[in-house]
């Protein structure tokens, strides 16, 4: 019996979807640019300029998840406002990724085992 299988599968699908948006799109574009650069440098430069900004790709991917969940409640103006908030958030996350941590740096506050007052 594998009761959790459908949920796990759903999670994997979501991850694959997001990764394809974030990494796949950007990687495909990068590899195309590299291949074309050997044949036609001018064309390659044009393609590079037209390549999607990875930051915007990530922002769009996160917005897509939110719209999938609450889209019916969010009109275009609301989505633009939220998109700007997401962009700030992604930039903040990128800054924090530059902070060097060790494997042993755990979350703070720390987990505290619980023992009740009963005998």
């Amino acid at each position, binding site marked *: 019996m594998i009761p959790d299988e459908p949920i796990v599968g759903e999670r994997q699908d979501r991850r694959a979807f997001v990764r394809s948006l974030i990494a796949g799109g950007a990687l495909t574009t990068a590899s195309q640019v590299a291949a074309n650069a050997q044949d036609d440098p001018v064309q390659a430069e044009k393609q590079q300029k037209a390549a999607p900004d990875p930051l915007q790709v990530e922002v769009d991917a*996160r*917005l897509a*998840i*939110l719209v999938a*969940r*609450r889209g019916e*409640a*969010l009109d275009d103006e*609301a989505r633009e*406002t*939220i998109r700007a*908030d*997401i962009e*700030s*958030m992604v930039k*903040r*996350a990128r*800054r*924090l*990724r530059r*902070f060097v*941590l060790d494997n042993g*740096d*755990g*979350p*703070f*506050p720390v987990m*505290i085992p*619980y023992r009740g*007052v009963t005998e």
Partner: protein
Amino acid sequence: MMNKADDVAFASLPILGNALRSGSITSVELTRFFLDRLEKFGGRFHSVVTLTRDLALEQARRADEELSSGTDRGPLHGIPYGAKDLLATKGIVTSWGAAPYSERVIESDATVVTRLRAAGAVLAAKLAMVELAGGMGYRQPNASFTGPGLNPWDVTKWSGGSSSGSGAAVAAGLVPFAIGTETWGSITTPASYCGVVGLRPTYGRVSRAGAMALAWTHDKIGPLARSANDCGLILNAIAGADPADLSAADRPYRFPPVDAPGRPFRLAIPRNAVVEAQSEVRANFEAAIEVFRQLGSVEEVDLPKGPWTDVAITIIAAENAAAHEELLDSEDIFRLTAPEDRLGAFADTTILASEYLRALRIRGRLARQLDAFLAPFDAVLTVPTAGPATPADASHGDEYNAPSLGAAGNVCGTPALVMPTGRTKEGLPTSIQLDGRAWSENRLLALGLAYQQQTAWHLVHPEVG
């Protein structure tokens, strides 16, 4: 002997306590006095959500009976107070300042309310606040279903947030003290704008059971009152471990302290701490520093560098979005008063778990860094807000950013005390902020007491009527 209304309205807790014990006033008389003021002036400042008249008079009658029969519960016995309306009160509306909850009744009391009742204090009112304690990202004072919090010194100015009613009610003499909460600036800002004393205790000093959660690892509960001494007496009543809140630390707290260090204070001022502050805030800060120089050594230091703000925003945003997930999934979110609050937390729902955890992991490093910075000193002195109270009808803009340890102190859960230092030419209060190591509230309060023994800014109050 207290004759004039102002003598009562703006009296400290010890003075009111002495009056109750000497028989010159009863708790019922005192409670009626403050209930009448809350009713008469509360609307002027948008500071009251619910007047708890019946409960208050019942509690006051009990206090009078106990005091007359020799049962003395301590310095808060028989004294009215107001609670920020995010603290649950059995049988009374607890609105969180938000329209979707404006008629919601929680059938239990917050631990803080229970402890104040045990100390004999009398709950006179639930006080107004910024909706959901500001977690949705409000950018202007009109962010509460009760209207913008207005300042008793000048009603065209804001009383600060998110404990807007707590600050205004104490400043206007509508209650002798109030309870506020802080996730980031929500006690220190209204204390500063309203010219009252505010104490943000160490994270975990006071149980949050029954208080609305904005950010579980950031939220603190503390007093707004007339003096550092009053704040200590209130903290003494509400501090301590609580099985209902596992973050409430099992550390002893006692005020007045029994172990004064018996040495001059060691104080620090961050280099260029007030360079960008408004000129009168800066001048009054410098005058206050001259007083502190008589109390101990003052040296200039550099504030520790670190991603304080990015870590604080990431943690608060992720926790707030989780704490209000059901609201964000409902149409009720669009009933909030401030338009920006209706959309403000949607983006936060897309913060990745790895990003939230990274912020928590960095916080561990920052906490050690901040403690090492604070350790040599009894307090670091800054200003809580870069300017005096801002207009009640304007956006916060950049004025809301203060050159203080606001982000660092809140992300690491260290305590802070805010006290008035003077007035501007317009008559608005200015303040100083004292930040200390975790669990050092009594050091900060001792400094506050010493400062207030040499100055009288905490005794000045607005003309209310």
